[in-house]
Every structure is written in C-alpha cells, then in structure tokens.
C-alpha cells in the first residue's frame, strides 16, 4: 500500500520537475527570452520592458518581434500598447 503511494508521489514530483526543466525557455529557445522589437509602421524599434514600457493586450495580431540574424520574426501575440491600452481593446457597451 505504501509502495503504491510512494510510486505515485515520486512519479508526480519527477514529472513536474522534469517537465518544468524540459519546457524552460533555455531548453526550448523560447523567443520571449530574446530582445523584443516592435514594428511602428515604418521600421522595427526596441520594445522595452514588458509591463513597464509596453503591454501586450489580447489580440491575434503580432505584439512583438525578435531578431533571427537580420530577420524580425513574430514572437508575442497581442496589440502593442503603451498608455492607450484601454481605448484599443475595449468596445463601448451599448444599450439594447
């Protein structure tokens, strides 16, 4: 009885620790670890620090890019916004 319990717990702990390391950005080469750029309509500029200099509000659009060689590749999805997030993402409520 104790052996089964011990096996279940050991498996759960091993899977979660292994899973966390296996999916860590260092292993998966996740783009969010790289320097983020924003396309401002004319060119790519440094995005800054997420949550401080800019926000990525929900949207299927591309929020930030990262550089692979000389190419800018989409990284984070969303709408890039600095101080105008509210006006971009919320739609006015209408009365029926």
């Amino acid at each position: 009885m104790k052996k089964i319990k011990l096996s279940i717990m050991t498996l759960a702990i091993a899977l979660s620790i292994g899973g966390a390391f296996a999916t860590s950005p260092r292993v998966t080469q996740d783009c969010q670890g790289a320097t983020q750029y924003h396309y401002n309509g004319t060119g790519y500029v440094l995005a800054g620090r997420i949550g401080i200099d800019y926000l990525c509000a929900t949207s299927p659009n591309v929020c930030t890019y990262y550089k692979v060689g000389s190419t800018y590749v989409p990284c984070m999805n969303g709408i890039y916004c600095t101080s105008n997030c509210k006006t971009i993402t919320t739609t006015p409520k209408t009365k029926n």
Partner: protein
Amino acid sequence: MNKRQVVLESISALLIMLFLYASISKFLDFQRFIGEMNNQPLPNSWTPFLVWTVPSLEIAISVALIFERTRMAGFIASLALMTLFTVYAAAILLHFFEYVPCSCGGVIRKLTWPQHLVFNLFFVALSVMGIILQRRSSFKSIIITKNSFV
C-alpha cells in the same frame, strides 16, 4: 489500498504536478515571470510581492499535499488559490479590468483565456473532490480507531 485511497492519491498527484510545475517554471525564468506579471492589469507595485508569494505558496501546497498529516490543509489551500486564479480569469473575460492582457503568462502559455478558465475550473473541482474524500477517509479512520478501543 482501497479505491477511495487510489483516487485520493491520484488527485493529490495531479495537484502536486500542477503546482510544482508552475512554481519551478516561474523560478527557472524569473525575469520573464516578472515581465508577465507586470503585463497583467494589476498595479505594478504588487509585482515584487506577487512574484515571490505565488510560487512560494505553490511549493508549500505541493509539500502539504505529499504528507498525509497536512494533506487536508493542502487541499483547502489548493482550492483557495485555484478559486482565486479562476475568479481572476473570469474577471478578465468579463472585461472587469482596463484591458485584456495576452494570455501568455499562465501555466500553459498557449492557452487562451477561456481555456485557462476551464483548466482552472477542472482543478477547482479536483480540490473540492480531494477535500470531500479526505474528510470521509479521516472520519472513517477515526471510527475504526474508536471501535478498536471498544
């Protein structure tokens, strides 16, 4: 090991996996986690507190769920934390905050906000099941102990 105990161990294992995976992932890329936290529609002044409290709580819950003596407390804490996450996901979906952040900061980054909500609800249900089953098994063991003295 009866059926109830197997279910109880499995529920504990699933919750341990969730909390341990989530906390270790956060600590493994702490700078990114700070950024994700700042991207949330919560005051940035909360970030230094939240980035340490949330993963530490998750580890504490995982440890509590491992041992029989602290398991009930673990289930209750798990229910509280998962309910908090669920309410937050629901509030975001209901446009309660100024803006809807990208869902890139969750346990599983590919999930959308509605998927996050369902995911969280599943673990809320698991925690509730854990509390009920743990209470029943504790009650049963008390009765067995009492009867053995009669």
